[in-house]
């Protein structure tokens, strides 16, 4: 082969390489959009299906109702998603919610309930709730990151502890006397015509999306979830950030707990009962990967929206309770199967 020949082949190969990359890029770009839009499309289809079956589904009142219900679950799913990104999960999220609810209600009752000023009451609730959440998050984080216990066992442990604390400090009864100032801030109030719960969820969602995609902390979480060893070698303080992730999770759960407490109007020792699994389900159905490193605010919110629409639709179309359980199970499986197909049909 002559020199000229050789360079010619090189160049053509190179050119070819470039166009090939270009095409590959275009295609994966298209796929990304498909991937991002698939769940929203499914959601719209679901909503449309229910709307055909029952005309009360698409009333503005019910849509607002759906949005409001979603905001709670979305908040918890986002909290869960933060730790799932790091290959963990938080089974203690539900009991943390109960604990915070009771703790905050007790703090408010301790401040004299409605008699004290609104600001004082809300501050007391926030302080008590946050303190409990920090304790729980710190426990999880330290046990997972520093002691090296698997997140499952660590949070199973703290789940039990939180249940114990919640029932002990409340004596097993709802704590009453949540003042209206508190409900005003976390439930009955509204901003620009939107119920406050939706506003809070939106604000938290936007802030969290910013943190995850734009900050060193968020970036690091993804890297830790993708390859913790590589993260450590690259000098990322893995242990410290893991602790922060669990703290953030618990803090978001606490915020949700306060909102739920305002919604119930009392501190409830059983408030978080099945929220742990529900929040994990929502995050995962939305596309957060339990293997770590994949997911975001969108996946958590979409998952929450999906589950809420499903159960709202089934309630309004009068599907029996047990049948609902079966349908929900089937849809969860179907959801991931579709996700799978979407990924492999490239």
């Amino acid at each position: 082969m002559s020199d000229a020949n050789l360079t010619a082949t090189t160049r053509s190969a190179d050119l070819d390489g470039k166009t090939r990359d270009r095409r590959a890029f275009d295609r994966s770009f298209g796929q990304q959009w498909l991937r991002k839009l698939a769940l929203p499309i499914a959601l719209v289809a679901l909503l449309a299906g229910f709307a055909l079956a029952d005309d009360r589904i698409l009333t503005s009142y019910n849509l607002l109702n759906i949005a409001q219900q979603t905001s709670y679950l979305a908040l918890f799913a986002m909290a869960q998603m933060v730790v799932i990104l790091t290959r963990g999960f938080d089974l203690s999220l539900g009991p943390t919610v109960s604990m915070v609810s009771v703790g905050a209600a007790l703090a408010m009752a301790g401040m004299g309930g409605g008699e004290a000023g609104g600001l004082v009451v809300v501050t007391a609730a926030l302080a008590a709730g946050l303190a409990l959440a920090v304790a729980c998050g710190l426990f999880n984080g330290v046990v997972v990151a520093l002691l090296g216990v698997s997140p499952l066992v660590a949070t199973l442990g703290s789940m039990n502890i939180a249940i114990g604390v919640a029932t002990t400090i409340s004596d097993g009864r709802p704590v009453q006397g949540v003042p209206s100032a508190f409900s005003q801030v976390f439930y009955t109030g509204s901003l620009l015509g939107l119920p406050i719960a939706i506003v809070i969820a939106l604000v938290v969602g936007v802030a969290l999306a910013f943190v995850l995609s734009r900050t060193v902390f968020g970036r690091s979480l993804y890297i830790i979830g993708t390859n913790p060893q590589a993260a450590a070698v690259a000098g990322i303080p893995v242990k410290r950030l893991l602790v922060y992730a669990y703290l953030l999770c618990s803090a978001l759960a606490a915020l949700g707990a306060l909102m739920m407490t305002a919604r119930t109007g009392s501190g409830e020792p059983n408030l978080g009962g099945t929220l742990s699994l529900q929040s994990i389900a929502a995050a995962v159905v939305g596309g957060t990967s339990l293997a770590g490193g994949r997911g975001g605010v969108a996946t958590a919110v979409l998952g929450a929206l999906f589950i809420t629409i499903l159960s709202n639709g089934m309630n309004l179309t009068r599907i029996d309770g047990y049948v609902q359980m079966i349908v929900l199970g089937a849809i969860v499986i179907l959801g991931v199967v579709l996700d799978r197909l979407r990924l492999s049909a490239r």
Partner: protein
Amino acid sequence: MNSTATLSSGNRTASSGDALDLVLRIGLLPILMAIVIVGTSLMSPYFLGWMNIVNILRMASFLAIIACGQALVIIAGGFDLSVGAVVALASVVTAKAMAAAASAIGGPDIVAIVIGIGAGLGSGLAVGLFNGICVSRLKVSGFVVTLGTMSATAGIGLLLTNGIPVYGMPKAFVQAIGRSQFLGFPLAIYIALAVILVMVFVQRRTLFGRYVYAIGGNLDAAVVSGVSIRPHLVGTYVVSGGLAALVGILLTALVGSGQASLGGDAMMLQSIAAAVIGGVSLRGGIGRVEIVAVAALFLTILGNALNLLHIDSRIQPIFLGLIMVLAVALDEFSRRRTSRV
């Protein structure tokens, strides 16, 4: 090459590390358990009473059987959240089938009993099969699939009964399986022992056991080594479903009625806890059922001890949580100290 060179330093660390590892793996949990046992027996005279020991063993048997199946699934890299729901479903199906058979046939009880047990086990195996097929064929994560089947299975159990206990099983069933004893021990304990022994054999000595380790340890390696993945993955879920159903049947015999409230989330979480405390790695590929059984015993003793020590039932979960974390943390700590990074 000369044969003396094969004994390099690496060899020695590898083999002695193996032995140490073994001691630690089997050693730490029993030590902790011994502490609990000695401590409790000093403080409560009833703890080491014969009846209490039998009770502990019976309760531990149920958990151990489920945890064995759960461990197998986790070793293969999966997760089975549906076991609690399967316990409930199997209980209901067993009771319904047995009652129906008893009233339809009217013949000897044994026929109805066999039909009932068969139906119960069948329901568990069917759920397991469904889980397995979804996981292996659709390549969906076990966590999500079994989260779905957990909800659906619980729904079916409730749909069948509306939550009302199912009666009408032959008395012989309750007497023979639920309450009979051999050599002072209830039947459940023997069944659990048999299950554990068989599972140990399966894990150590059979192709299936070996392939389960391989699939969980490195799926790609298993594929290129020519291991057929699907049947073995399905197998783990089927075994898990079957064992959960077995527990459902045993519990049904014990309480004397089919109940959709048996099992549940608590049982599922406990089985996972027992597996993990027993050294099964959630990343797959690692774990031995005999240690898992010990962990199941440990958890049961712990709960029993807290009751016998008159600890307020509201505070009990706090202790339980702390000790659980402590057990695994200690284990992790010693493992990390002895093994290099």
